[in-house]
């Protein structure tokens, strides 16, 4: 796989993150390619979620969290003070481990973001955004006749796709996914994976997953984190067939004591 020919969407350089006195990330250098799926794997507490939360500055909301170093989105530094985090999060959406629809209708869940960002000018435009977003998230056919029902009335897998649709409603460029399938059954997981495959044609996706099989299935590039450091990054095929680093091999083959 040719990794070098891809355009770099996100570039992390010498990124260090601290929670109070505890350092969570150590000198992370990682390039994330545009319109590709990058999987981040590693044991719990290794820093992979902390890392993706840096990409849309979600760590800003944690008082004791300090981020040093550089993250560039399309060559522009996102950690500078002048950067408006609301605009940043419009470009960089996020989907979490547990589906977290707002306690509102399916329609309002999707309309919320575009309303805040002032994207739609009238009801017709908003209707269109809701429909398009739900279609992109492969949920439209299942909910089109019940848009006024609460988002929480959907099944777990549907709720997760609703959250993906919500992220898509503000036309992001990057979607961060933090273990998006860990609460889902295999069928709902397959639907999300199918969706990821489809979404990567238009979006850059970074996914944190504990499932090796999922990383292999959905991603083109994989990074292995351990104790706050990046141990190895390479094409997914290389990482899972023949990794260079012994720690990577021990982790993915289940040899970690």
């Amino acid at each position, binding site marked *: 796989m040719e990794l070098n020919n891809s355009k770099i969407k996100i570039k992390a350089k010498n990124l260090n993150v601290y929670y109070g006195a505890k350092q969570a990330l150590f000198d992370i250098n990682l390039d994330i390619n545009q319109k590709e799926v990058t999987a981040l794997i590693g044991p719990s507490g290794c820093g992979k979620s902390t890392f993706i939360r840096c990409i849309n500055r979600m760590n800003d909301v944690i008082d004791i969290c300090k981020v040093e170093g550089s993250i560039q989105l399309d060559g522009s530094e996102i950690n500078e003070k002048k950067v408006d985090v609301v605009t940043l999060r419009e470009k960089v959406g996020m989907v979490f481990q547990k589906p977290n629809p707002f306690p509102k209708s399916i329609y309002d869940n999707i309309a919320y973001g575009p309303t805040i960002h002032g994207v739609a000018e009238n009801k017709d435009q908003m209707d269109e955004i809701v429909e398009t977003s739900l279609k992109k998230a492969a949920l439209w056919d299942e909910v089109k006749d019940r848009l006024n029902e609460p988002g929480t009335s959907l099944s777990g897998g549907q709720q997760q796709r609703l959250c993906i649709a919500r992220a898509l409603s503000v036309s992001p460029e990057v979607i961060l996914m933090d273990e998006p399938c860990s609460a889902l059954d295999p069928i709902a997981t397959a639907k999300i994976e199918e969706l990821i495959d489809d979404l990567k044609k238009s979006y850059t996706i970074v996914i944190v997953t504990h499932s090796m099989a999922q990383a292999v299935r959905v991603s083109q590039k994989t990074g292995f984190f351990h104790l706050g450091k990046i141990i190895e990054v390479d094409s997914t095929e290389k990482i899972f*067939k*023949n990794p260079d680093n012994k720690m990577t091999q021990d982790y993915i*083959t289940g040899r970690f004591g």
Partner: protein
Amino acid sequence: MSGTGHTVKSYEEEMQSLNDNLVMMGSLTESQMADAMSAVIKVDKESVDKIVKSDGKINELRSIIDNQITTVLVKRAPMAVDLRITISTMKISHDLERIGDLAKSVAKKVKPLPVDLPDELTASLRRLGDLVQKQLKDVLDAYLNKSKDKAIEIWRKDEQVDDLTNLAMNEVATYLQKDKKNLEMATHLLFVTKNIERAGDHITNIAESLYYLIEGEYLEGARPKGKPVESE
């Protein structure tokens, strides 16, 4: 290879058992080949039935290994080195089974041979048999020691197997030209020679699988070849 074992003990045991069965299969195939060659050279017709029968044990092990591999794939979804071990073991076990079959075919040709087989007919065949047996022993040792260099050496040495095959076939053809009455015997010996050469090819396949297991890459370039047998 990784020095530490799997966190899940039963996974470790499954991989160990797979390895043990392959080693056992290799050892039986080695004996089978040695017995078949000895039967030809000594024209020992009495040993033929035993050799034919013991091929069943090799086939049985292949089938056990196939089942174990299916189980490992479905239960463990092996990754990296475990994946390469699993894939290579499957391929190696199939090559060993074919070598066992070829040894059996060699043995079966002993029955119609005359007991007073002239030495001039078997000199090169004996050398070919010795070389192929040595190659088999070496590749099994290389597997045990996971030796990449040995795998390459064995792979390259197949050229000598091809050359000796040509020599042995020429000897038989010359003998046949002397007296057409030798036709039946010569035909059997040509089959024996060809079968041994084919066993040599499976040994190089094993060397290739072993190289992949160790390196995660395929041996590159065409295998060195002796003069083509068919051109003789």
